[in-house]
């Protein structure tokens, strides 16, 4: 039986944001695209477990996240400091946007613990509700809320955003140094 074209179109429509989420997890476009392909293979092989009318993006994001997590756990044994590596991959593409401020934002984002970064992206960029984000991450709604809040506070610290000044490297460095002693 062929796949319902409506379902197929819903899958295709989700691909762009699925890639954006994958890149934010992997920090690397090639790995992210592999992850997206693997996600789609798995999703379409198990499309019967998707209930039409429910949230296709949330379903696909959940599959992708689970795949990433199992792969991440495997890799973690090989290479510690995955977050540090993530930061490095970002630094190696500084020309991608050509804006210093923007690149600093990426580097700061990469310094967040992965569960906070993931929660912030799901809610703040992908536009999922706290409830959907909690379902995707397999945790309580309150946990997502507190991760998002901590992520925002930490980012503001890292970027030393306090209003009018733009944040140059010196400000960012000072923020990193000052950021360690939170109570």
């Amino acid at each position, binding site marked *: 039986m*062929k796949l319902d074209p409506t379902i197929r179109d819903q899958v295709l429509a989700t691909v762009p944001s699925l890639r954006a989420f994958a890149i934010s997890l992997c920090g690397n476009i090639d790995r992210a695209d592999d992850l997206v392909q693997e996600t789609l293979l798995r999703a379409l092989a198990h499309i019967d477990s998707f209930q039409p009318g429910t949230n296709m993006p949330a379903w696909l994001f959940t599959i992708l996240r689970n795949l990433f997590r199992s792969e991440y756990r495997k890799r973690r044994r090989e290479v510690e400091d995955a977050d540090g590596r993530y930061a490095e991959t970002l630094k190696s593409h500084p020309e991608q*946007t050509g804006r210093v401020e923007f690149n600093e934002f990426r580097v700061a984002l990469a310094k967040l613990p992965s569960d906070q970064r993931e929660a*912030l992206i799901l809610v703040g960029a992908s536009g999922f509700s706290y409830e959907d984000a909690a379902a995707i991450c397999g945790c309580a709604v309150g946990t997502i809320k507190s991760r998002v809040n901590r992520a925002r506070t930490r980012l503001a610290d890292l970027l030393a955003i306090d209003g009018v000044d733009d944040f140059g490297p010196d400000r960012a460095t000072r923020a990193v140094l000052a950021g360690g002693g939170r109570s």
Partner: protein
Amino acid sequence: MGRPATQRKSEVRLGREVQARIGQQLRAMYDDVVSQGVPQNIADLVRRLSDQDDRVA
């Protein structure tokens, strides 16, 4: 309005402006990728898989 930038506290309060700025950068970064659309190889993959009689890879 016009409050001087003398708040040198390392403890940054998350005002509305700061939140908005973080949200804006976050979406800009994300939308950078979203605007690339669906790469051809992925579109082909989805079409191929959805036309198969037996979709189990």
